[in-house]
């Protein structure tokens, strides 16, 4: 789970927050509702996550309410992977 979070964090820092101190981006920082990621950035992040973690995310998985922080994203990926394996 920590690996998942770290991978997402690095992607967001490099792609959308260059120059930012990693400490400013916590696992709880709202990303969609805060405007840090706009809709286009979210599309790019979803695509990255799908390729990186081999999951397919649908509309309900990535809604603003449930896919807003690194914690929520990691939990979704985790859940999807379990579903895939069973």
């Amino acid at each position, binding site marked *: 789970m920590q690996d998942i979070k770290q991978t997402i964090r690095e992607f967001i820092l490099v792609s959308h927050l260059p120059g*930012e101190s990693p400490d400013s981006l916590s696992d709880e920082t709202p990303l969609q509702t805060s405007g840090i990621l*706009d809709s286009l950035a979210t599309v790019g992040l979803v695509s990255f996550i799908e390729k990186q973690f081999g999951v397919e995310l649908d*509309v309900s998985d990535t809604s603003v309410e449930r896919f807003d922080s690194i914690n929520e994203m990691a939990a979704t990926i985790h859940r999807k992977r379990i579903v895939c394996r069973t």
Partner: protein
Amino acid sequence: MARRNLADLLAASTARCPNRLAVVESDTRSLTYAELDEQSDSLAGFLSQRGVRRGDRVGLAVPKGLQAVISLFGIMKAGAAYVPVDISAPAERGRRILEECRVSALIVDAASLALVPSHAAVQVIVVGATPGETVGARFNDALDSGRHVGQRVDVDGDDRAYIIYTSGSTGVPKGAVITHSNALSFIDWCSDAFTPTADDRFSNHAPFHFDYSVLDIYLTIKHGATVYLISEELARRPRDMARFIAHHRLTVWSSTPSALMMLVQFGELEACDTSSLRLVTFGGEVFPPSHLRALQRHWRSPVYFNLYGPTEITTACTFARIPSDVPEDRETPYPIGFACSHCETLVLDDAGREVTEGAEGLLYISGPSVFAGYWNRPAETAAAFLDRGGVRWYNTGDVVRWDRTEGFTYVGRRDRMVKRRGFRIELGEIERALYLHTGIREAAVVTVPDGNLGLRIVACVSCRNGRPSIVELKSFCATKVPTYMVPDRFVFKDHLPRTSSDKVDYQTLKSQMAEVA
């Protein structure tokens, strides 16, 4: 039947083909012409009953869906102009817009009640479920209550159809007022240029606060065709959007190049049969030829058009037919082409002389689609027009070059307005938002080219004590301006470069940023 307003298009098509599908939201949610006509009549009845009069403004702040389309027609049938508001933008911005044009009613999503203006006597109609207390009337109850009012309001060509707000250079959005005859003249041009039939299945990708939607909705309705709504949710899901196009066998697609580039990059187009597409129009920003080629590898069948035009002239005033097989070696973007037949063009140099072929100048537009003015802004309205030879010419502010074979080529702007994802952005509005942050001493916003997606917005700031985090600054901006205006990059400096007259030196800043960002 004499056709004087946009709602007359619906009446005529309903008379011809009441049982055909007019609007589709999903497999289970759609409206026939008769249903759309009847339900918008009911809404108009309710609005009239509640005191909405001819010439009034009615706010529209709901997610894309059947109720939003019923609302467009209901509002216009009541004689009012609709004022579409971006519900994803900060509520404060939307509320100011609704207050400025003194809406007498507001149709609003249950999740966006923060938009309800503070001025008295606003009738509120709520779409969707509200937990707890109900504010105003529910949409379905409003339709029930307005069903048998049967009041007909006379609506003329000169009546206002809608007011769309665009970013303003002073930091406050300004509303372009479009009349029914403005919009009808554009729609009639579309009929000639694109020859739609009742069998066409149009997409509607643009949100209603973006005037590209005028083409999708009213051209469809005029021809008794069907429009398929791309919800905000679906627009964020390129793979599902591609499946939607294939599943519904859409024949006409219109959107910004950004949306098309997103489809190519993330939509897995190779997995979808989109051979039904016969026409693709794009506009609102430059389409880099490499991305256009990538799209055409998947979408081979359609005819392509590049449309150009500011909101003030109603969606489009020039057009260019683009080859369906953009050559491999083409690197320069395609021109914006020739004047649409309902528009006249004029290109003037700095001295006010008409330019010769190959020279650059400002593009002016006249004709029946040119707007009436900005809502409540006589000075800005006057400044937007040039009187020449007894004709009122709208100054687009866009610098173009004229060429006999290619038509107009877009060169750029002399002011600080940019276009991104089809939206107009005044960089001054972003600076104004940044200055509201207590930690910021100086702020200057510039754009630099971004190979992938057109433009990147860079904010250069100097701070009072210590620098705030970028996370904080981005979040702060998003509470003041829509997310498409939030800077992509922040660069911190001790001092911003200044010219000898102590103004921010944007030229220097821009060249510095091109290297940094």
